[in-house]
């Protein structure tokens, strides 16, 4: 048997930025079963409507956030044949273009890795306690939840009523 990493699942909430290649390398290092790594990175973008964005501020519920995401990863492990997962989410003030979230998943083949990665992001968007506030030249506003995110989670057979 090839050596396997001690911690296959890691969930972190942090203010500082993350190094994508280092995180991905650490996730599949020493796990010879891994043949696929699916990675999603969410970044701060200019919104379609409204004022120019100076920065985005992210608030969360310390304690619950980590617990909620760990539960999501456990559900992903039950649904898909994945070996490891790493979910990082930043909080605090983030500028345009900065990285917000990383979801990386390992599996033997791409199908399960892609699906688990999408499942985790769909889940996180509607069930993890984070809130975004936009700060611009003319003021600040909280970002509204989108019903399309509830619909994305419903595809997996999970009824969510976050936005609605």
């Amino acid at each position: 048997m090839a050596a396997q990493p001690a911690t296959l699942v890691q969930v972190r909430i942090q203010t500082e930025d993350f190094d994508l290649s280092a995180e991905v390398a650490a996730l599949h290092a020493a796990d010879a079963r891994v043949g696929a790594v699916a990675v999603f990175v969410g970044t701060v973008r200019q919104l379609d409507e409204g004022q120019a964005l100076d920065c985005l501020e992210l608030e969360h519920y310390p304690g619950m956030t980590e617990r909620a995401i760990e539960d999501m990863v456990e559900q992903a492990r039950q649904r898909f044949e994945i070996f490891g997962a790493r979910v990082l989410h930043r909080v605090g003030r983030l500028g345009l273009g900065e990285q917000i979230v990383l979801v990386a998943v390992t599996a033997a083949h791409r199908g399960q890795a892609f699906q688990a990665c999408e499942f985790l992001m769909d889940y996180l968007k509607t069930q993890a306690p984070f809130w975004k506030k936009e700060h611009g030249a003319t003021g600040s506003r909280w970002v509204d939840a989108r019903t399309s995110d509830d619909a994305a989670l419903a595809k997996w057979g999970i009824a969510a009523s976050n936005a609605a």
Partner: protein
Amino acid sequence: MNTIQIRFFATLREALGATELGLPTAAATVADLRDELIARGGAYAEALARGRAVRAALNQAMVTESAALKDGDEVAFFPPVTGG
């Protein structure tokens, strides 16, 4: 009477000017607790008004408002989440 630790986040935290509140209450469920806060009037009545999208967590897990309360529970109220 139970004592419930109540926490507010995002728009609710701002509207109420409070992050945390320890409340002795006879509320049996999260819904009862929300109604009790609404009955305080003022910013509470407005921010937690029925018809507004308010989500709740009990002991740091998402719940519907029918969830039952016991002494020492932590209840959080917040708007729909928008992370990711």
